[in-house]
């Protein structure tokens, strides 16, 4: 079956989630991947959205983080202060699922500004729940389209903390989660090097070359000695992915 790079990215992200895990889900790409996983190998995945919906099972994908479908199908709906203070902050979430406009070699994420904060070239939406998700979840997955303008040597603004400038920073700052353990793109998968914490290429998707990935990466990308090749999406994965409809879509 033919598939697009975007579909490969979503399937690869979904495969990384294990049944029974508790996932704090951002809108768009993360939401699509988490809902795909729940319909495939992880029926007991617990989805939590920052709008306060706990263990929600939407039959259609929400357009916004607080759509009605999330509340109607949730085990419980709590307030926004509660979702951050009682559920995210103490470390009850296994996986935080994030995306961003810029990501750098130490997996720091920028969703605030391109350029200077005071005089931005492009003003982006800002933080939302991401900084605390990046700080407090046991692990973070990042899912992002792989483009040279987004995969930069240093982000213009650290909205959400990855590994800062190296392997010791998270511990020094007292951050309790492990940080970004996997970056899934439409070209391949990057993971932090166990010693340097710098992102290295650990897998490429079918039909993608290392040269292609390097050309779309704004730093000198190291390649793992055990570079993997992602298994193409199965027919079932693609069928389910293509059946996911967004609420109110034309």
């Amino acid at each position: 079956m033919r598939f697009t790079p975007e579909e490969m990215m979503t399937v690869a992200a979904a495969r990384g989630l294990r049944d029974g895990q508790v996932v704090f889900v951002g809108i768009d790409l993360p939401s699509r991947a988490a809902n795909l996983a729940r319909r495939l190998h992880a029926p007991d995945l617990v989805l939590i959205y920052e709008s306060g919906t706990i263990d929600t099972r939407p039959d259609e994908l929400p357009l916004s983080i607080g759509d009605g479908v999330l509340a109607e199908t949730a085990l419980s709906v709590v307030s926004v202060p509660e979702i951050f203070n009682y559920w995210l902050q103490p470390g009850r979430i296994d996986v935080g699922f994030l995306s961003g406009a810029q990501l750098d070699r130490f997996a720091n994420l920028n969703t605030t500004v391109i350029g200077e904060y005071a005089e931005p070239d492009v003003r982006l939406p800002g933080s939302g729940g991401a900084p605390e998700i990046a700080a407090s979840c046991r692990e973070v997955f990042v899912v992002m389209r792989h483009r040279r303008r987004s995969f930069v040597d240093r982000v213009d603004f650290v909205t959400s903390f990855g590994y800062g400038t190296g392997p010791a920073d998270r511990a020094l700052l007292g951050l309790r989660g492990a940080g970004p353990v996997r970056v899934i793109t439409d070209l391949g998968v990057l993971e932090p090097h166990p010693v340097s914490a710098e992102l290295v290429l650990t897998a490429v998707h079918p039909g993608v070359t290392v040269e292609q990935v390097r050309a779309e990466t704004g730093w000198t990308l190291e390649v793992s000695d055990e570079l993997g090749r992602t298994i193409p999406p199965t027919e079932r994965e693609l069928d389910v992915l293509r059946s996911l409809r967004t609420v109110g879509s034309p």
Partner: protein
Amino acid sequence: MAKIVSLREAVGELVHDGDTVALEGFTHLIPFAAGHEIIRQQRRELTLVRMTPDLIYDQLIGAGCARKLIFSWGGNPGVGALYRIRDAITRGWPAPLAIEEHSHAELANRYVAGAAGLPFAVLRGSAGTDLPMHTPAVSIVRCPFTGEELTAVAALTPDVTVVHAQRADREGNVQLWGISGVQKEAVLAARRALVTVEELVDELEPVAGEVVLPRFVVTAVAEVPGGAAPSYAHGYYARDNTAYRDWQRISRDRETFAAWLDELQKAEAVGEPGE
């Protein structure tokens, strides 16, 4: 005790030029009708507070009502950017806009401190990130028991908070349910509270997961059916995602927005005078 009034009276009496105003509602129950009435009454120099500015603040800021925005995520969710806010921040149009920016957890906790009558709230926060150095309302505090360094955020106490709810009774007790966001904290943190409701009823029947705002913390209630559209009111109507998508086109261009604003100012305020 809450007064039952028309939306026009409520905004006229409770929202003043220069006020700090919070219109809350997290995707759900966004008080659009009240925001539109603030535009019609041409309030100026407001400090607007909302976790997610959404279309309603794009409209208020595009209309020139604000001089400052306190927020934590400023996009059109699932669709794109808020171009009127972007235009005000980056090009000062139609008026310069100062910003005070937070993460969701920080801003939610600023309301929590305000609601609790405390000067600040404590959270673990997001050490190492760049935003706190630009935001004076965020600082560091040492725990007196463990010595740990934690993030402190200053209490937020709006002059007036505006929320939309499903129902109120005729004494002004307010009931809302579904995604309840930060409305309870925003109302309790404020000096005055204006609530628009889908309907006034004789008696509030209990609903699972409800939040009740007793009449003695509500200043005024106005009955405004459809007052949250194009956001939604759980149990009443769905989110108009088409309107959210269409806003991109209107918001992107100053002239298209000016035409939209013109239409809004011609339209009468919704909601009948109180009984």
